[in-house]
């Protein structure tokens, strides 16, 4: 095969990886954690955002077979992932559960990952540890909390899986280390495109890192889009209450969230608004990714649709 044919074939092979979540339900006693989640993931870096308790950790836990679903299905390339070791050997979840005892050496941790996942990128891990300033021969228990997180991140990036789930990966990391992590994440993704799902509350930092965004609110996916097009997902209209209401009514806009301060009201509506048709006393602005996520998910507190 020529180089170009090889590249095309590789791209096809990568494109074939698909994780399909259909109508997923989960409850803990009387609390509903997931209320019908539908999502299809393909090789890309995804940002999974939502309020605390929205169900992000639960969703990732179920994909990784650590939690049991209450209903619905999750399929990796057509095969269910539940209790399926072949599928689970292609899935890796990193959250605050530490699946080993603290008195082990870093090498032992990495070797175990290598055994269970079939391979391990030792060169990459050595390079990352060096950049982060962690001695490869250290004992996990001797490291600070931030360093321990880094070690586990390094392991997560070095296993040859097709689905990498990172649940709050940068918790406890200082700003410099966070930047370093994002760089390595992007490098790893460039080398080995795969499905990577990043769940974090520091949205603004990864706005450029992620390719697609999924927002989970109250157990459902309320929006899924390309990170770039966040500007077209919603618009915030600011102006006098009656004027704004008029604009919304005449354009049949769908309200996402609403804030009122006296006569002045600030309404987030779905989609884009043609600014040329706006009256001069109502302003329209785009939202950045973090702002949009906040507004879209805070609407649960404020009365919707008014």
């Amino acid at each position, binding site marked *: 095969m020529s180089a170009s044919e090889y590249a095309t074939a590789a791209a096809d092979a990568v494109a074939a990886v698909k994780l399909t979540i259909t109508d997923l339900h989960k409850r803990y006693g009387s609390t509903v954690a997931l209320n019908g989640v539908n999502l299809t993931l393909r090789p890309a870096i995804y940002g999974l955002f939502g309020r*605390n308790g929205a169900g992000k*950790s639960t969703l990732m*836990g179920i994909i*990784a*077979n*650590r*939690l*049991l679903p209450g209903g619905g299905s999750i399929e990796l390339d057509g095969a269910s992932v539940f*209790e*399926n*070791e*072949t599928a*689970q*050997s292609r*899935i890796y*979840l990193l*959250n*605050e*559960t530490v*699946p*080993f005892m603290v008195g082990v050496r870093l090498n032992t941790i990495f070797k*175990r*990952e290598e*055994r*269970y*996942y*079939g*391979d391990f990128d030792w060169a990459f891990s050595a390079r990352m540890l060096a950049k982060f300033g962690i001695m490869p021969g250290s004992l996990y228990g001797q490291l600070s909390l931030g360093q321990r997180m880094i070690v586990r991140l390094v392991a997560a990036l070095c296993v*040859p899986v097709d689905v990498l789930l990172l*649940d*709050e990966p940068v*918790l406890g990391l200082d700003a410099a280390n966070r930047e370093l992590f994002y760089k390595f994440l992007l490098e790893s993704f460039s080398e080995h495109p795969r499905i990577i799902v990043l769940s974090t509350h520091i949205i603004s930092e990864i706005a450029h890192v992620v390719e697609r965004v999924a927002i989970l609110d109250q157990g459902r996916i309320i929006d899924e889009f390309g990170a770039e097009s966040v500007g077209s997902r919603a618009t915030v209209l600011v102006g006098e209450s009656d004027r704004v209401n008029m604009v919304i009514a005449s354009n049949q806009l769908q309200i996402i969230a609403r804030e009122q301060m006296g006569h002045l009201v600030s309404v987030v509506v779905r989609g884009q608004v043609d600014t040329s048709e706006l009256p001069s006393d109502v302003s329209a602005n785009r939202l950045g990714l973090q702002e949009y996520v906040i507004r879209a998910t805070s609407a649960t507190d404020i009365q919707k649709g008014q």
Partner: protein
Amino acid sequence: MTGKTQGLSRQFLLTLRRCLTVYGVVLAVGLLLFVPLCYQSVMLGYTGSSAIVFPGINDVELYFRPILLFTAMAWQWFFFDSALCHGVSRKSYMKATAISAAVVPLLLSVLYLMARFVVIATGTAICYEKSDGCRITGPFYAHLSEQFMYAWERMDWNRAPSMWEAQYSPALPAGPLFVGLKFFSLMLSYTAIGALIGAVLAWLARRGIWAVSIGVVVLWYAAQQLSSSPSMLIYMPKMQVISNFYELGTAQNRLVQAMSGRVVSYTADGVEIGTYVVWIPLAESLVLFVLCMWIIWMFTKRREIHPARQRG
């Protein structure tokens, strides 16, 4: 790279290996400590009847029972998370649990028989006389499985204990086999019970620190009670005359007989004859094993690993 070899997945094999290693390490340490203890008892002259007075020094059973129990418990409680976080399914974890819980006692029994053979052949502690091979004059002074050496023997228990001597039965050459089987059934039972306790404690731990603490306290209390009550004497070593347990002819006594494999029958002139029947405890332990594994599976297939609810 699916990692399957003839239907056995990589994860299953790795988990099985890990489980066996855990048992292996603990037992190796146990054995290392056991040998000097035995030697010490030999040197200090604790042989024969003295062994009754100082139980547990060269009492293999008493020594290894808690080791197997706690190892099985630890595996069930503490190693589940690690398995699942590496892509192992609950089913594979359970299979590894069950296989280990059967294989380890089996291997230990084989080792025990081999060691016993060596010990007898070299004429240490157990033997009184070395003539005619090594006969234990006071088999009923040895630990429980040793008593099965004389299975199928019919002992007249009306005679004073000091006058008890085994008559060789045609089955004597197979005596060690019975000993081994009884030993295996004991070890199997303890391993199965240990695994079950581990599964229950893990389930309680999921429910909170209070639940598991109460659970541990309850278990400790139950263990204390059992070890002092007559029912526990079923598994206690050393000679125990069946008639010591409740009155002969009562239901409780029959239960004790049934559970321990020591059966009493009567001759025409009312002489009590005691017989050791090994297949009774063996069958019991197998049933117990299957039952425990089934219950553990009920727990395991619903077991989840939850992320911490509080985020610091």
